[in-house]
C-alpha cells in the first residue's frame, strides 16, 4: 500500500439552499485508480471541482502528500499536480494539438513562443499516451477519442500526479474506450493516480483498484478491488437492492407499426436500411459510435431527411421531409442531446411539455391555457416528474426529470412509433430504471418503440429484438433468445456470426 498522495478530510460544500457535500472523505494513494461513483447530484462533480481548484470548500481539509493545501485557482491545483479532464473537453478545435497542450503556459524564449521546445515536449508526451499523430495536426481533424487522449497528454505535460477524469467514455466508441483504458493502466504503472468518475459500472469493474461511492453528498461506502461487483456498487449507490433492474414481461405484438424500405441517410448513402417494428414491440439498435444509428433516426423523423426510400407509418408511405410531417404521421423522436435538441432550457416545464401538442390543442390561433395546464398536470403525475411547479424552468431540473419532460412532450401526441436516441445517457441509475419502466409501459399500451443505445446491457435488458449496425448498414438482427454480448459485439464490429442462429 503506497502513501496517501491526496487526501480529502471532512469536506463540506454548501450552495444556497442545498448542501452539495457534507463531511466527505477520500484518499488516493500513489499509482492507484480510484473510481468515484454515485447518482447524479451525489456530489461527485462538486468534490472534483474543489480538488481542481475551480471552487473552494466551506469546511474540511485537502492534503497533498500530507500537507494541507488550499487552492484558489485552477493554476495552483495544476502546480500541485492535480489536473481535471472535463466531461465536455476543454480544447480549442481550431488550434493544433501542441498549441492546445501548451495553451496559456507557452514556454518563452526571448519573449517569443519557443516553438521548438513545444514541439519536442508535445511529441514526447503524445508518445506516453500512445497517440500517433503529428503535434501540428489541427485538433478538429481528430476523433473524439483522440481528442480525449490529447487532454490526457496535456495533463501529463503539466506534470500532473493525479488526473481526474469525469465520465471520459461518455462519447467514445468502444475501441476508443479500450484505448483509453490501456492508457490509464499505463499511467498507473508510471506512478500517476487517476480518479475515475463514471456511470458505467462495467468499466469501473475493469479498471478500478478501489471504488468510492457517494450518495446525497455523503460517503455511502467503499469497495476494495476484490469486492467490486456490479450489484454491490448499485446497492451502495441507491441505498437498496435493485433486484430486478430490468423488469419486463412478454409483450404482445400487434400489426407492423413502422415499415422501412430502402432508406438511405445522408451520411451513408451507399447503404439501404430495411426493417420493421411492430406495435407493442421494443427494438434496440446497437452498434458503435459512428455506425449511423442516430442518422437513421434523424432520417426517419425528417430531422435530416433521407435521400431515398420509403417509410410507412399509420398507413402513410413516403419519406418524411420535416419533423412536422413525421409528427403528423405519428412518429416521435427523443433526441440524443437532451439540452441541445430536446428541451427549451429557459422555458417552463409547462411550455416544454406542450410544445409539440400546442397546435393540436389550440383554439384557432390561440394557446388553450386550460388544456395546457391539464396536460402538464396529467403528465407530471403519470411520469412522476419531480419539479417544484409547472412554472419551473427546464434548466433547473435533474437529467432524469428533464428526459421525462421530453417524453411528456411526445406522449401528449400519443405517437404510434416512439424513437429514442440514447434515452438514458447521463442520467442516474434510479431515473434510468424509471425510464425503462416507462418504455415498457408504452409498449404495453401498443406503441412501437425503437431505441438506440451504446450500452449493451441496456439493449439486452430492455429490447425484444436488436438491430445491430455497422458502418451505415444493418449488419444483423438478434432475437431476445440470441442476446449475448459476444453476438452483438461481433455484428457491431462487422465480423460475421460464426454459428448463425
Amino acid at each position: 500500500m503506497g502513501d496517501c498522495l491526496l487526501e480529502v478530510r471532512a469536506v463540506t460544500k454548501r450552495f444556497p439552499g442545498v448542501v452539495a457535500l457534507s463531511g466527505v472523505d477520500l484518499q488516493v494513494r500513489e499509482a492507484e485508480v480510484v473510481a468515484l461513483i454515485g447518482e447524479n447530484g451525489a456530489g461527485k462533480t462538486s468534490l472534483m471541482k474543489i480538488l481542481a481548484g475551480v471552487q473552494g470548500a466551506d469546511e474540511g481539509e485537502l492534503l497533498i502528500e500530507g500537507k494541507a493545501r488550499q487552492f484558489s485557482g485552477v493554476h495552483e491545483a495544476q502546480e500541485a499536480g492535480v489536473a481535471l479532464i472535463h466531461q465536455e473537453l476543454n480544447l480549442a478545435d481550431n488550434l493544433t494539438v501542441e498549441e492546445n497542450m501548451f495553451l496559456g503556459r507557452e514556454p518563452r524564449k526571448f519573449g517569443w513562443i519557443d516553438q521548438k521546445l513545444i514541439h519536442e515536449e508535445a511529441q514526447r508526451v503524445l508518445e506516453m499516451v500512445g497517440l500517433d499523430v503529428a503535434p501540428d495536426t489541427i485538433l478538429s481533424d481528430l476523433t473524439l477519442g483522440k481528442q480525449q487522449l490529447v487532454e490526457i497528454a496535456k495533463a501529463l505535460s503539466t506534470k500532473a500526479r493525479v488526473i481526474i477524469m469525469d465520465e471520459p467514455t461518455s462519447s467514445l466508441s468502444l475501441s476508443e474506450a479500450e484505448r483509453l483504458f490501456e492508457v490509464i493502466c499505463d499511467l498507473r504503472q508510471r506512478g500517476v493516480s487517476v480518479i475515475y468518475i463514471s456511470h458505467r459500472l462495467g468499466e469501473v469493474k475493469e479498471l478500478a483498484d478501489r471504488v468510492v461511492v457517494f450518495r446525497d453528498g455523503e460517503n455511502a461506502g467503499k469497495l476494495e478491488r476484490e469486492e467490486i461487483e456490479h450489484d454491490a456498487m448499485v446497492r451502495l449507490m441507491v441505498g437498496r437492492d435493485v433486484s430486478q433492474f430490468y423488469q419486463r414481461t412478454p409483450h404482445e405484438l400487434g400489426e407492423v407499426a413502422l415499415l422501412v424500405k430502402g432508406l438511405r441517410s445522408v451520411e451513408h448513402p451507399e447503404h439501404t436500411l430495411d426493417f420493421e417494428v411492430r406495435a407493442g414491440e421494443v427494438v434496440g439498435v446497437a452498434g458503435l459510435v459512428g455506425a449511423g444509428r442516430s442518422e437513421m433516426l434523424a432520417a426517419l423523423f425528417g430531422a435530416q431527411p433521407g435521400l431515398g426510400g420509403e417509410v410507412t407509418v399509420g398507413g402513410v408511405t413516403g419519406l418524411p421531409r420535416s419533423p412536422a410531417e413525421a409528427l403528423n404521421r405519428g412518429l416521435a423522436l427523443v433526441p440524443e442531446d437532451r439540452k441541445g435538441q430536446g428541451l427549451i432550457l429557459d422555458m417552463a416545464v409547462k411550455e416544454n411539455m406542450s410544445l409539440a401538442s400546442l397546435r393540436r390543442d389550440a383554439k384557432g390561433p390561440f394557446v388553450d391555457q386550460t388544456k395546457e395546464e391539464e396536460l402538464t398536470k396529467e403528465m407530471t403525475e403519470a411520469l412522476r416528474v419531480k419539479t417544484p411547479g409547472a412554472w419551473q424552468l427546464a434548466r433547473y431540473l435533474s437529467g432524469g426529470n428533464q428526459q421525462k419532460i421530453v417524453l411528456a412532450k411526445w406522449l401528449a401526441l400519443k405517437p404510434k412509433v416512439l424513437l429514442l436516441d440514447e434515452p438514458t445517457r447521463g442520467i442516474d441509475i434510479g431515473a434510468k430504471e424509471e425510464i425503462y419502466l416507462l418504455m415498457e409501459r408504452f409498449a404495453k399500451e401498443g406503441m412501437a418503440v425503437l431505441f438506440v443505445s451504446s450500452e449493451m446491457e441496456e439493449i439486452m435488458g430492455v429490447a425484444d429484438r436488436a438491430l445491430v449496425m455497422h458502418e451505415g448498414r444493418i449488419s444483423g438482427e438478434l432475437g431476445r433468445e440470441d442476446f449475448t454480448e459476444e453476438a452483438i459485439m461481433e455484428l457491431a464490429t462487422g465480423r460475421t456470426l460464426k454459428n448463425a442462429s
Partner: protein
Amino acid sequence: MTLVVVYVITAFLNENFLGGYNQSKQLERTGLYGILSLGVAFVIITRGIDLSIGSVVCLVGCGLPWLVVRHGWHPATAVGLGLIVGLVIGLFHGLLITKLKLQPFVVTLCGLLIYRGATRGITDDQSQGFGNSGYESFREWGTGEIELVGKFSLPYPFLILVVLSIAGWIFLRKTIWGRYLFALGNNEEATRLSGVNTDRMIILSYVICSMLASLGGMLFILNGNSAQPSDYGNFFELYAIAAAVLGGCSLRGGEGTILGVIIGTAVMQLLKNMINLVTWLETHMEFFIVGLVLLVAVVMDEIAKRRAAKRRLG
C-alpha cells in the same frame, strides 16, 4: 423603473417639461419610434437582428411623397405599395436567412446599404416632401391628435402604437405563433424537432419587422413633411435596437416583452428631451448620455438576472 427616474429628474430640472405641449410631443415621438422598436423586437426574440430599418424608413418615407406629389398617385395606393415593399423586403431577408443560412447581421447590413442607395437613385438624391398645401388631410395620420385637457392631447402616432402594441402583445403571449417565436429564440433546433416550422416563423418575424419599419417610415414623413434621401432615417435601426434592449430584449434571443419595448422607447425619447431642455446639458452630448444609460441598464439587468438564477437554484 428607469422611466420613472428619468421622468422625475427631468421634471425637476426643467419647468417646461411637464407642460401639456411637451408631454404630447413626447408621446408623438414615442409613437413614431416605438413602431420601429416593436418591429425589431420580433426579430430580436428569434435571436436575429435587423440593421436595415433606418433605410427602409428612408425608402418608404421618401418614396411616399415621391409617388403622391411627383407622380400623382392616390395616397391610399401609395400607402398600399409602401406596405407591400415592406413585406417584400422582410420576405427577402427571411428567405436568405433561413433557406441560405446567411447571418442576419450580414443580410440586413447589405439591406441597409441597398435601400438607402436605391432611394437616392430613384429620387435623384433630391429632397422629398408634401409641400405646404394640398395634403393636410392625408398628413393628419402623422400629425393629428385628440385633444384632451389644456394643451395636452393624444397624438395619432401614439394611438397607432397603442393599437399595434395590443395586437403584438396578443400575438406574442396568447397565440401559438408567439410561443413558437420565444421557443425558437431559445433553442431553434429543439423547436424544429418538436414539429414547428421554424423557418416560416423566422421569415414571419422579418416580415413583421420590415412592414412596421415601412409603416413607421410613412408616419415619419407624414409627420415631418420633408426628407433628405441621404440621411433620412439614419441610425433609426440603432435607436430601435437600443430601445428593445433597454426594454429587456436579449440579443441572445427568446426574451422580451412588448411593454418593456414601449417603455424602452419612451426612456430613449425622454432622455433626448431632457438633454434638449436641461440647459446645462449640451445637445451634442446626446449619444454619450444615451449610450451611458443603456450600458448601465444592461449591466444592472445582468446582475439582477444572476441574483435571480442563484435564488432559483436555492
